């Protein structure tokens, strides 16, 4: 009770600090900046905060906090636009939203999906703040109770969502997740530094593939290419059905789901080291399991939007706990936030254990500024959603080139290498084929996202456990099977058992027709071949670096077994069986007026052009050629749209102080920015 006696006055002080017109003004400024940055896929909070950093030095602490928090809070809100409207996961926070949000947009219900998502975000943000106000006083021992075995189990719980999202053929889902895990191990191992499927001659691969690139490649590229082939608007019939009020009503009808998912979000967010990567999948899994009729998931079920969106803003609040209490950033943007707080005012506020003792009022200001920013941001987004949803009625051929432009730019920002574009293309190809043959793309992405945590926590927990076992058997068992671990094991087992039963009804790719054996078998063989190569490669790592090879060997072996069983099934079953699902047989893709390769060639053209003349010049040529030839637009229209695209790109890069991918031309002669760059 003593803690609460100090908390109440501090809470009052916090509100007195926040409720000043100038503070609110800075908050709104931050929110608007955050929305503008968050709308563009792949940039996220890090880019936005870096933009604000130069102004932080010596700034009045409350004003600086209002500005920064306004920005950080709304990025996971506004990135919903890209994931719902275009099927582009803007950040790791909005991957699960794509699964049902984008199909809703395709049904002409974009405004409904958006407003349901935003209302959920708002609510999640508020629940998170309310929860934190109490919890932050007692959080420290609870956070410390989550050791490596506990974190490993949460990661495995996240991984178990694969069971729900595996699709009609569970083995395919498992193999897809395994492939995702294996792709995630590419590069220098964290533990011993051994190389997996990489070489120092190709420095790009040694750092591994970035989540932005894999997310864009797996979800965005296949959808963009498919829509472009069909040459229609995103919303079928180019008309908008349900409006934004329906979304709010949807949320009202599902408010308890929203409460539960918000609590999931804030709880998982609190645990340092896990961050946002698992939380939206766990929330999505929960939404599926708690819905009686599961047949609409993957086809535009609004509960599939409400669940993850409630959790992802709540998670931002939870993420403040490790950041403020331990000085350990829960995410990349939080790391910059910590650095920036030190620049504020006279530098008196130090994020870390002293924060609660010395600056409880500031701590509460941060928590409630976050909540307030959510309110402001959400209202702005809901107000805009009706208008922005109209984008889905535009003929897609006019949108696609801009989307190619944006995702290329976003991919390049992740590593500042030309190879980023190549990686995007290769992962995009994998995504296209996974979609075509009805292999679960969400399963693949979950595998990729959790690859690094699974490997890291397994190795570290194993090492510490064996250290404890050497002391005594009891100490070891006590370490591995803590009460939290046992609870998590039960939850995981239950969710897997239920998940497998339900998986067949959830068809993330819709109802895919089956056809001949040849194409699906070739794809399966290609995956199996990659797995074999990766296995041989992992096996070549010397034994003293066991930590670097054990996970790739285990996961690769397991996935390969899945592939081999699939192969024998494919040999036995007749053509037309569900196992031979192929989107090119019948349906939207098969009936599309344009072919896959001729459509993809446009994207290849942009990349190849960039390799030669750099991004901006290549983009100029790409946009003009695309609008003239593919879209058959008039010259005035072509030139206007091209100019708009180039201007937007230069403006964004200019403000955020970013470069464009250079080509051979740039290495030969120095050109001024934006044509050249460094």
């Amino acid at each position: 009770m003593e803690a609460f006696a100090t908390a109440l006055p501090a809470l009052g002080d916090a509100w007195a600090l926040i409720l000043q017109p100038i503070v609110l003004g800075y908050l709104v400024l931050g929110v608007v900046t955050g929305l503008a940055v968050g709308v563009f896929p792949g940039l996220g909070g890090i880019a936005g905060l870096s933009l604000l950093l130069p102004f932080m030095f010596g700034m009045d602490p409350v004003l600086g906090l209002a500005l920064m928090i306004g920005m950080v809070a709304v990025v996971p809100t506004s990135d919903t636009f890209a994931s719902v409207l275009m099927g582009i996961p803007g950040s790791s926070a909005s991957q699960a939203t794509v699964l049902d949000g984008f199909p809703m947009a395709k049904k002409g219900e974009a405004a409904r999906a958006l407003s349901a998502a935003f209302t959920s975000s708002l609510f999640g943000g508020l629940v998170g703040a309310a929860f934190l106000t109490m919890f932050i006083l007692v959080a420290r021992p609870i956070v410390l109770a989550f050791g490596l075995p506990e974190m490993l189990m949460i990661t495995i719980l996240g991984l178990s969502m694969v069971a729900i999202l595996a699709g009609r053929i569970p083995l395919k889902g498992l193999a897809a997740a395994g492939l995702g895990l294996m792709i995630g191990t590419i590069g220098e191992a964290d533990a011993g530094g051994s190389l997996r499927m990489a070489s120092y001659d190709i420095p790009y691969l040694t750092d591994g593939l970035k989540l932005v690139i894999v997310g864009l490649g797996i979800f965005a590229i296949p959808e963009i290419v498919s829509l472009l082939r069909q040459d229609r608007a995103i919303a079928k019939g180019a008309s908008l059905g349900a409006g934004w009020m329906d979304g709010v009503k949807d949320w009202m009808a599902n408010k308890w789901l929203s409460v539960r998912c918000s609590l999931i979000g804030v709880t998982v967010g609190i645990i340092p080291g896990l961050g946002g990567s698992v939380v939206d999948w766990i929330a999505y899994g929960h939404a599926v399991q708690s819905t009686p009729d599961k047949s609409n998931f993957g086809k535009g079920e609004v509960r599939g939007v409400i669940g993850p969106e409630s959790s992802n803003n709540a998670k931002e609040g939870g993420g403040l706990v490790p950041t403020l209490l331990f000085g350990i950033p829960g995410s990349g943007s939080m790391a910059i936030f910590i650095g920036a707080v030190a620049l504020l005012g006279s530098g008196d506020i130090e994020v870390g254990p002293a924060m609660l003792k010395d600056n409880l009022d500031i701590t509460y200001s941060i928590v409630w500024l976050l909540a307030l920013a959510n309110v402001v941001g959400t209202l702005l987004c809901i107000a805009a959603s009706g208008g922005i949803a109209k984008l889905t009625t535009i003929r897609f051929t006019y949108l696609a080139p801009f989307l190619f432009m944006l995702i290329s730019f976003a991919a390049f920002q992740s590593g500042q290498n030309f190879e980023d574009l190549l990686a995007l293309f290769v992962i995009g190809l994998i995504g296209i084929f996974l979609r075509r043959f009805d292999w679960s793309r969400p399963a693949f992405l979950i595998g990729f996202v959790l690859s690094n945590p699974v490997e890291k926590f397994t190795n570290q927990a194993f090492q510490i456990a064996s250290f404890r076992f050497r002391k005594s058997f009891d100490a070891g068992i006590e370490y591995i099977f803590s009460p939290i671990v046992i609870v998590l094991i039960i939850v995981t087992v239950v969710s897997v058992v239920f998940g497998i039963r339900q998986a067949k009804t959830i068809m993330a790719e819709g109802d895919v027709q089956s056809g001949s054996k040849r194409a699906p078998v070739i794809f399966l063989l290609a995956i199996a071949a990659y797995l074999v190569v990766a296995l041989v490669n992992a096996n070549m790592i010397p034994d003293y670096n066991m930590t670097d090879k054990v996970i790739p060997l285990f996961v690769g072996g397991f996935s390969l077994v899945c592939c081999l069983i699939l192969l024998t099934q494919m040999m036995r079953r007749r053509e037309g069986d569900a196992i031979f699902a192929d989107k090119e047989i019948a349906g939207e893709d098969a009936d599309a007026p344009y072919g896959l390769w001729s459509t993809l060639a446009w994207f290849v053209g942009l990349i190849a052009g960039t390799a030669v003349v750099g991004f901006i010049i290549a983009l100029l040529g790409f946009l003009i050629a695309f609008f003239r030839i593919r879209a058959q637009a008039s010259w005035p229209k072509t030139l206007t749209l091209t100019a708009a695209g180039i201007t937007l790109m230069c403006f964004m890069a200019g403000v955020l102080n970013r470069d464009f991918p250079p080509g051979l031309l740039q290495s030969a002669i120095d050109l001024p920015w934006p044509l050249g760059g460094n």
Partner: protein
Amino acid sequence: MTISKCARNAVAGAIASAALALPAAADVDFSGKTIEWVIPFSETGGSAKWANFFAPLLSEALPGEPTVVVKFMPGAGSTKGANWFQGQEHKDGTLLFGTSGSTQFPYLLSDPRVRYEYNDWNPVMASGTGGVAYLNAEDGAKFDGSANMLQDVDFIYGSQGATRLDLVPLLAWKMLGMNVEPVFGIKGRGDGRLMFERGEATIDYQTTSGYLGGSAALVEEGKAVPMMTWGALDAEGNVVRDPTFPDIPTFKEVCDATDGCDTSGVEWDAWKAFFVAGFPVQKLAFLPAGTPQDIVDAYTSAFLDVVARDDFADLSVKRVGKYKVFTGGSANAALGTATNVPDSAKAYVVNWLKEDYGVELK
């Protein structure tokens, strides 16, 4: 020349030149220009914090008050960015590059991926930090100023990798005859501290700012016992007590008091060489090869002005820790101490990394 002589000359030179050199830079003007300060790490690390702290101060101090922006080029633990910088030529003095211990160590160990040469670049500023090692309460009770009673205890330590800055603590503990098992793969020292707080790790070390910001509170609560600092260098290049922690003995003192630990010979030289490169001269700012002297001078005097600000001590303590800052000629000298390691010391470390951790640099 032995390492201690080298360090001594360098530091003595540093102090001399800092006192004398105040170069004129009247004809350099950056008005309306934008200086890019490239950091070969991500936005989230300590080097980002360091550059973001200095950038606005530098902007005020340079002639013409140009905008200074910090840019990030992460990859391969900074090797990518450093290799890139090696290929840059002087244009108009608007490119500045920052390195850290993680850039110095692969260079010192002749990592084959290193294609950069420190001696080609023009250092204009260098700064350092200290480090403190500490034990949990149970084992801390056995610490009596020597490690004699810790030699039969098994320790566990959350580490970022044996070839990183963690090389310094790992080698120190080995020299003390302690049995420390590193758990590799953590992402920052903060994660290591958390592992220690959870009781999973039983020994830890933090840099000065990390210790003050987090671990000092643990010591107050009785959950941790400080063991030793890495120390600081005096004008002679000797290891002395860290001025931030005058009450905590240095590794040198603990080593002297511990049976079987020697503060001379190849092992000590190796430890000291990597300590110098990793701590007192941890971060350096460079202009590219071929930069004309007047521009180097302009930066030098700008950094001198920054350090000479009345409020600098105050600002820097709170924001980036109590770092010693070297400028101009002393930055050059600091670079010398940070990038010169006797071959015998290098060979010793390379062999130790291979035998104990299976790390082969090829």
